[in-house]
């Protein structure tokens, strides 16, 4: 058995629809190491959920291979299912008339949890996701966040070494989302490998070790989270407001700053600069740029992963075709 | 739910059901009470198919608003809720009656009772009156229970009560409590009028009683709509979750 928790090689999936074929995954290659949390990013239709479903044995690929802890997802179903927890989330996927505990009990048994120790495990899981107090209430009375936490408890009940999380925080309020992130963060300490699909980059920022971007059914980038931030080509945006003549960047300054936007109205100007590399020296360089100007105010906004993703997505769209190594700062 | 189903599927599932329902009750009549009971059961079977299989689809109107969460839009419109509700029920009633005519023709041919079916043709207006009464009470029952799990139960109970108490299979006068319940429900008086007409007996009184019960069902429906609309405004339960 190899050291990787998830290995995907040349994975493809084409859906037949009326009027032709839809290619959801073309040639996906990625690995998730044991104990690693990998964030899977991509716009709608990029193939994230398709990939998750194939790994969860819910969907058959039309090409390539995928293995979970060395077991093929198309032939070693029993082993893959025993080793994998899946959280697809959403409001469906639960028996609304049954209680949270009854739901968890049933799905725990389906996941292979034996009779011995089941009750203790149910209690622990409910406690872990903060549903112990409402465990005997019908799920139809649960809020969206409570249902999502129950999904998480179901996905983790057999303590799988590999967990697939598809949009775990979607639709949750900030408090619920943060609580769920903490639940996932605990998995890291247990050595669980996680493939985390999310539109919310805060999830990726807080949880993931590595980011994989899917675009048009292919891996467009596969980098460490720290490296991912550099894909935008800047680390902060400085917004300066002043009067008089706006500053002009010379060649040396242009290597450190990029003018994002400059607007002038009624004698006032607003300049947005992208700082390529924020450091102590940046203040000195910024002073040099703004030296002759009358400054009314300065605002510094650190880079967010949303900005990085927007930049990457725009670049991918501009490129027309995608692939590893094509996304550049 | 039928409202969400393709019309072709709905028709192809309903038509055989109606035919077989008429055949079942007619043949069962012969089996349990002798060949003389077959004609009695055939006429009753027709009415049961008309109401419990075809007309019952009118409840898809309130059910549809529950499942698609559209009641609030109707409530916020200019047109009174009851008008919208009943207007939308008309197509179900019309299609149901059309299907019933086809089912009756097929079943009569299968059972060799075409002569009886032809003798029933002049009584179609009374059949239509029974369908209206049943539809109105069905809408009233579905609307009254729409916010509860009993929404599935109410129309089905009405169906079984009709089967038991309308005099469709069991002749009136056998069981007192069944007669008592039947006399305040749609169908029983209309069916009695049809049977009297076929036998050449006076039928008008029973037909008028059927009309009275039809109007009472309409009043109950209006009451149920008013209560649910008021409840929705007071508690904000437009989705009836």
């Amino acid at each position, binding site marked *: 058995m190899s050291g990787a928790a998830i290995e995907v090689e040349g994975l493809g999936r084409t859906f037949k629809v009326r009027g032709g074929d839809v290619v959801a995954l073309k040639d996906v290659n990625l690995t998730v190491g044991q104990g690693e949390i990998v964030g899977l990013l991509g716009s709608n239709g990029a193939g994230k959920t398709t990939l998750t479903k194939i790994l969860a044995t*819910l969907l058959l690929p039309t090409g390539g291979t995928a293995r979970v802890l060395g077991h093929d997802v198309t032939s070693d179903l029993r082993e893959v299912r025993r080793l994998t927890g899946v959280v697809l989330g959403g409001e469906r996927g639960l*028996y609304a008339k049954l209680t949270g505990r009854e739901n968890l009990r049933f799905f725990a048994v389906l996941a292979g949890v034996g009779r011995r120790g089941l009750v203790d495990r149910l209690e622990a899981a409910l406690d872990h996701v903060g549903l112990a107090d409402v465990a005997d209430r019908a799920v139809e009375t649960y809020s969206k966040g409570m249902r999502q936490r129950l999904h998480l408890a179901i996905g983790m009940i057999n303590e799988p070494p590999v967990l697939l999380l598809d949009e775990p925080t979607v639709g949750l309020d900030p408090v619920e989302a943060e609580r769920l992130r903490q639940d996932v963060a605990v998995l890291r300490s247990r050595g669980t490998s996680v493939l985390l699909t999310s539109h919310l980059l805060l999830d990726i920022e807080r949880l993931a070790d590595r980011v994989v971007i899917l675009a048009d059914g292919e891996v467009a980038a596969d980098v460490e989270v720290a490296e991912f931030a550099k894909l935008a080509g800047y680390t902060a945006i400085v917004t300066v407001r002043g009067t008089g003549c706006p500053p002009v960047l010379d060649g040396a300054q242009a290597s450190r700053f990029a003018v994002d936007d400059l607007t002038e109205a009624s004698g006032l100007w607003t300049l947005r600069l992208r700082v390529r590399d924020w450091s102590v020296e940046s203040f000195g360089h910024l002073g040099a740029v703004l030296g002759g100007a009358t400054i009314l105010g300065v605002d510094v906004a650190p880079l967010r992963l949303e900005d990085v993703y927007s930049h990457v997505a725009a670049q991918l769209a501009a490129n027309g075709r995608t692939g590893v190594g094509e996304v550049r700062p | 739910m039928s409202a969400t189903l393709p019309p072709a599927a709905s028709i192809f599932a309903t038509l055989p059901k109606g035919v077989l329902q008429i055949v079942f009750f007619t043949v069962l009549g012969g089996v349990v009470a002798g060949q003389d009971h077959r004609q009695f059961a055939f006429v009753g079977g027709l009415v049961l198919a008309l109401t419990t299989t075809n007309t019952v689809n009118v409840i898809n109107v309130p059910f549809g608003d529950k499942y698609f969460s559209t009641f609030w839009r109707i409530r916020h419109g200019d047109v009174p809720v009851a008008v919208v509700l009943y207007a939308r029920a008309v197509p179900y009633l019309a299609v149901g009656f059309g299907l019933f005519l086809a089912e009756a023709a097929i079943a009569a041919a299968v059972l060799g009772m075409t002569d009886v079916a032809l003798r029933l043709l002049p009584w179609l207006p009374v059949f239509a009156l029974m369908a209206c009464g049943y539809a109105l009470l069905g809408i009233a029952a579905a609307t009254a229970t729409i916010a509860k799990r009993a929404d599935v139960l109410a129309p089905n109970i009405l169906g*079984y009560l009709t089967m038991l108490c309308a005099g469709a299979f069991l002749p009136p006068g056998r069981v007192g409590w069944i007669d008592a319940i039947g006399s305040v429900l749609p169908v029983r008086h209309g069916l009695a009028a049809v049977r009297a007409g076929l036998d050449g007996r006076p039928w008008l009184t029973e037909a008028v009683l059927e009309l009275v019960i039809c109007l009472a069902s309409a009043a109950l429906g209006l009451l149920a709509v008013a209560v649910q609309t008021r409840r929705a405004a007071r508690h904000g339960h437009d989705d009836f979750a």
Partner: protein
Amino acid sequence: MTGPPLLGDRLRGAAWTFLTAARTEQRSMRGNPLLLVNAGFLPVVLLVIAVEAQRPPADRAAQIVTSVMLTALWGSTVWTSGGVLRRERTYGTLARCVCGVESPTVVLFGKSLGATLYGVGTILVATVATVLALRLPVALAHPFWLAVGLLVVVVSATTLGALLSCLFLLTRNGLLWSGALMYPVFVLGGLLIPQDVLPVWLRWVPQLLSLRWINEFLSDAAGPGPSATPLAVAVALTVAYGVVATRTYRWSIDKARQRGSLDHA
């Protein structure tokens, strides 16, 4: 990580999953209105109209009661155990049910058993209450064989329900077909309407329904004495239903995994 489980462990695991599925389905049937309608009201209405239309003699009463119960069981099976997979699809739980560690068939049959037990129990209560209310003279000549027949009823209805469930899974209009499938068996099932009343060219149809053979066995067990042949045919048909259900279910799941439609509503 451990190696593959031993055969004994696998059997124990399958039995545990089967029982848990049955128990879960029973719990979700609590207060299910469809159960009350088809298992509670149907036998009462059929029994009252069949008996009060013309009071049967003592030797015919038990036969009518048995036929009514099995007719109601068909109605209940179509909606309850026959609706197991349709409901899973509605709730969005089908994907998880077929992707458990144990075989999806084990889960399906467990759930079908849970629904059937509830249905049979409700039908029994409703029928006994109606028989008492109507003061029907029903004799139970061979109670042991009646109990055996009842056991076969439960197993057969469970398998039949699983088969129907798989067939309904093949269509998006399962609810509609559930309603449409009731009367064909009422007419052609050889239960309330005897086989010899049907046209000659249709008399083979009831032979394919296990409930018709169980009806014959139970009627004999309540009266003159049980016969092994109808019981054996009922068991054989039950096994056949099970095989067809298992194959259909596997085929449906494979198709759904190919098409990606497992979690469609």
